[in-house]
């Protein structure tokens, strides 16, 4: 986490509002049930929106802490499962090479 001098919320407050609105929509309820078989949990987006606004208005340290904790938990949730493959350090060497047919033509 960047120090207090340069810190700002990880997302603009408008993004938290948009996510909370989307989460509570009937369409999202249907999509979420179709994928997970249960209702979505939207409360955390509401809390994050409140924290973001509080930080914008009062530069609250508690709001900053709460937002960081929430977003770190989201990142952790995506890293829960070990990957099937090894990630590359650099892209495939032949990605940009001409096609073998083009090489023959040249």
């Amino acid at each position, binding site marked *: *986490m*960047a120090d207090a001098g340069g*810190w*700002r*919320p*990880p*997302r*603009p407050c408008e*993004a938290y509002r*948009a*996510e909370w609105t*989307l989460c509570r929509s009937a*369409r*999202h309820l*249907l*999509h979420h*049930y*179709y*994928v*997970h*078989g249960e209702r979505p949990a939207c409360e955390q987006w509401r809390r994050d929106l409140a924290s973001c606004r509080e930080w914008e208005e009062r530069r609250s340290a508690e709001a900053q802490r709460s937002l*960081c904790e929430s*977003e*770190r938990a989201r*990142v952790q949730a*995506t890293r*829960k*499962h*070990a*990957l*099937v*493959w*090894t*990630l*590359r350090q*650099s*892209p*495939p060497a*032949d*990605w*940009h*090479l*001409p*096609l*073998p*047919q*083009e090489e*023959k033509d040249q």
Partner: protein
Amino acid sequence: MAGAAGGPQQQQQQQPQPQQQQQRVACQVFPERRAQGGSGQGLLSSVFSNDQGCQRLLLKTLQTNPYVKLLLDAMKHSGCAVNKERHFSCEDCNGNVSGGFDASTSQIVLCQNNIRNQAHMNRVVTHELVHAFDHCRAHVNWFTDVRHLACSEVRAANLSGDCSLVNEIFRLHFGLKRHHQTCVRDRAILSILAVRNISKEVAQKAVDEVFESCFNDQEPFGRIPHNKTYARYAHRDFQNRDRYYSNI
């Protein structure tokens, strides 16, 4: 059927026997992938083919579809900038496969005789770009590890819209609660069987083994994009990632 990771006919060096067999199966689906690799279309055949229609649909997808724009951005960020002429090829394919990713030539094959309309093109390009993205960011053993192929097919079915409620209803597959996951499993198995000479049981076992990990790996979207709104939000988050990671 949406795309599967296709294999090449190109044989530049001695390769292990199982890999050659798998490549032969893929050749049968993508007959224009000739020995020298790349697009097989000659000048004469392109005059009479659906190539121009395919190119037109593809251009519109690349320019306007939010799923595809995010994938293109993510690939550029990973060092695999996509060039339409180099990395896409419109060809006629056997069966009812819609497309494939040829890892040996780094090309996405679009089956112009099977892609019906703009929405279908959007979905096929998204599906194949997921494979290309996986190829770009990870060491995927496409031909020697069926679990790697299974993982990419799970991700492609999950993230491309292949298994949307509407698409499943059109296929007369009716289900609601957790049906998306059933669809992803089933379509991943179908895609594997389209390009690999293995039994359904082996394909099923591979999908089962990798499902938990690969279903939950939703890069570069960070979520399952159920429609264009979700895809736009995902793209917004991707563009914001520097701010995001430097402030958590």
